[in-house]
């Protein structure tokens, strides 16, 4: 029992990697509602509460005009059936339920958390059913939300980080639907009509285009009833059509965007991978070592720990329906921007060339597999997994096989795959800040 300080390294080396059998995910139940919505359900009887999320393939990738998807989802809670926004809010607040709506590039979704006490559950789910099935899209709410989105765009323009992020995504995706600004633009918001929103809703907020995730203290029969109830008002409809593939960049591109800030925000990257990508686990584990593991990653070691250049430096693959971004980000005082860029480029180039060491890979596997229980340690985390697995049609044993797939990754695979998938001569670089020459 006496673990002496000096014995620590030994102790670490003795750690065996977790085996997959010991670390299975929760048992996921799945079925399809009468109208054709797919449901993923995990019972969680410990706490008297329920989390439910309905996800539609109706994010900004489906925009006819930038901002339509965002405006559509925002307007859901602004009036439905006989209820105006005040009544919807009153019904939920009075039983302590929390509901939110949002959209990103792939997904548009509604999430709700409620107590499972009978009246709270009934009141909440009746409200969700109306909100999804009979939204009113009243003109006054439409105008108010449009104006709020314009103010929000103004706020974004005050933030060098937000400016960098938007320009990066917009440029990265070129003429792919993913290039559509999720929040819209001032010009596009001025053009959107109520009919555009209605058309978006009618096409994408349909049962066959929906995925329902449920985690909570209900049994299968109740979960089935809830799934039928919340989709009762939806048309069966059709799944959204396939999105085109994302094209790789055909060369390097650098955007220097002057901004009155003390820091320069740096974003660098290219199209990365998609959900279900055959290289997913290799890229995921490799990136963990490069810039995905916080303070112990190579990028953090080089940029932050060794040189004190940045508070936050990271890299990630954001897998989407189609190839989402592979992105490296950092911020540093303007005078150090060039140095930080150099260090990031060198670190990435070295990683692509040499890959990780065996020791680094072992440490990464220990971190990812040892941390597996944390990934599914709360209802809200399980809900997130269900929504992701269901939406992207991933196998339901994804969590059961996760640890084994991570453990199977080799340094050679990482080296080979990064060389094949990440092209240092085709990087998009966005720098937002005061140009050093202007100092």
């Amino acid at each position, binding site marked *: 029992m006496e673990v002496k300080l000096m014995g620590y390294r030994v102790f670490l080396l003795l750690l065996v990697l977790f085996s997959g059998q010991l670390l299975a995910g929760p048992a996921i139940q799945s079925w399809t509602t009468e109208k054709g919505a797919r449901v993923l359900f995990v019972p969680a009887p410990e*706490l008297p509460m329920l989390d439910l999320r309905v996800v539609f393939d109706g994010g900004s990738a489906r925009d006819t005009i930038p901002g339509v998807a965002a405006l559509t989802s925002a307007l859901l809670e602004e009036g439905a059936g006989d209820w105006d926004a005040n009544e919807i*809010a009153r019904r*939920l607040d009075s039983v*302590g339920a929390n509901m939110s709506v949002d959209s990103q590039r792939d997904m548009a979704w509604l999430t709700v958390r409620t107590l499972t006490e009978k009246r709270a559950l009934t009141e909440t789910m009746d409200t969700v059913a109306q909100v999804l099935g009979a939204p009113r899209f009243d003109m006054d709410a439409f105008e108010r939300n449009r104006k*709020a989105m314009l*103010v929000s765009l103004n706020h974004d323009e005050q933030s060098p980080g937000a400016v960098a992020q938007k320009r990066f995504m917009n440029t990265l995706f070129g003429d792919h639907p993913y290039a559509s600004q999720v929040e819209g633009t001032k010009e596009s918001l001025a053009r959107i009509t109520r009919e555009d929103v209605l058309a978006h809703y009618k096409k994408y907020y349909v049962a066959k285009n929906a995925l329902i995730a449920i985690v909570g203290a209900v049994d299968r029969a109740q979960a089935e009833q809830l799934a039928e109830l919340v989709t009762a008002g939806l048309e069966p409809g059709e799944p959204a059509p396939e999105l085109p593939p994302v094209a790789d960049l055909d060369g390097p*591109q650098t955007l220097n965007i002057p901004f009155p800030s003390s820091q320069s925000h740096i974003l660098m990257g290219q199209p990365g991978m998609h959900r279900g990508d055959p290289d997913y686990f290799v890229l995921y584990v490799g990136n963990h070592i490069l810039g995905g593991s916080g303070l112990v990653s190579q990028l953090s070691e080089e940029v932050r720990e060794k040189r*004190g250049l940045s508070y936050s430096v990271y890299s990630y693959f954001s897998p989407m329906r189609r190839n989402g971004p592979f992105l490296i980000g950092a911020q540093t005082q303007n005078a150090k921007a060039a140095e930080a860029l150099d260090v990031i480029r060198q670190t990435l180039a070295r990683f692509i060339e040499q890959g990780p060491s065996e020791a680094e890979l072992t440490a990464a596997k220990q971190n990812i597999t040892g941390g597996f229980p944390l990934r599914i340690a709360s209802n809200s985390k399980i809900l997130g997994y269900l929504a992701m697995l269901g939406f992207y049609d991933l196998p339901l044993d994804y969590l059961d096989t996760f640890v084994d797939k991570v453990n199977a990754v080799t340094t050679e695979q990482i080296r080979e795959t990064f060389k094949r998938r990440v092209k240092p001569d085709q990087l998009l670089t966005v720098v937002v800040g005061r140009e050093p020459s202007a100092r």
Partner: protein
Amino acid sequence: MRLLLSAAIVMLSCPIWVNASVLPEKQVHETVLDNGMKVIVKEDHRAPIMVSQVWYKVGSSYEPDGITGVSHVLEHMMFKGTTSHPPGEFSRIIAANGGTENAFTGRDYTAYFQTMASDRMEISFELEADRMRNLLLLPEEFAKELEVVKEERRLRTEDKPTGQLYEQFLAVAYRSLPYANPVIGWMNDLNHMQVDDLAKWYRRWYAPNNATLVVVGDVVPEEVFKLAKHYFGPLKREQLPELKPLREPEQKGEVRSVVRVPANEPHLIMGYKTPVITTAETAWEPYALEMLVAILDGGNSARFSRDLIRGSEVAVSASADYNAFSRLPGMLMLDGTPARGQDIDQLEQALRDQIARLRTELVTEEELERVRNQVIASKVYELDSVFYQAMEIGMLETIGLDWRLADRYVDELKKITPEQVREVAQRYLRDDNLTLTRLDPLPMDNTKPRQAAAGGRHGG
């Protein structure tokens, strides 16, 4: 009437609402080690994980002028090596064991945490006990980390119009209390900070008798106590500095200030000085203030959303905030951004009208009932996160309150009457007691992103 009835049915039909609203005391265990360190354990066996948090009673409100930010810089240096673990090894060991770790500094506390599989608890204890007393504070590591902290300050404050607004608001509002200083410290103080400032700070405050260990998760209390005693027990207690009783002098009139920085949107903060649980002469007042804030901003049906964002459409965002749990008295704060086509004067007037209404009219029983149900529900929702459960216990202990207060919180709120809400509004939400700061945007034009391709793009 209908709502009253339905709420009554809720309470009758499901006693779980009442039971789950209380932290079951039998699941929480505590002990004090011989050296004065407090250990609190809460069992939660839903998943095979645990969170371990070490809380120190020190934060920015303990700092004298000239070294503001020292608590936070020291927090960064706690990852930079001890006599037995070189810089960076702490994080590597936690990572290799599948853990996530971090730390945070507030006005009244500095806390360190690891979330790990519950069979790794011992690793967390060994490392935390080591760095509680054996930190190296190497000058070359300090020099680099200080730059990281300055970058953090630029990110959070210098380049954020609302960050600057908030910083100036607090600096202007407090005459005497150290809450006037930013947690991250003033840039000038960071520029002049020495590693010796940290060494003194560390020696003075990082002692077992100034710390609380909180563990929540799939653990057995007896084992936690045994391990805590093994690792933290041998650490020597320190003579802690005696804290002076700080109090804010009574404000004698409204204070206004303006922040002028490049920005697109105006913003307004209003703050009324208020008591907190640790200082309130009348025990119910902080709870009445909590209710009052929830009446204004507790959900989408509260008055700000209903009347200001919808309704009159004067604001695009408006919020109210009050924290009853702090070491020293604080403020009830309102803030907001005007909607398009409205100006900041109209927003200020609308917020003042909302306060005037609370001072003259009684809130309705329906509004109170809504808040009570929201609070009860949120107590259940909190149980989904072991981290939050530990956070609540650690925070209460560290500001000088008993963790059992979390249990009583809902009951105390339930007792508040409409008359009491009006009474605290009349007593504290007065113009004489108000500080108001506006963000007055300067044009960003000359520095705006150049739209033309020729200006913004440099191929290659």
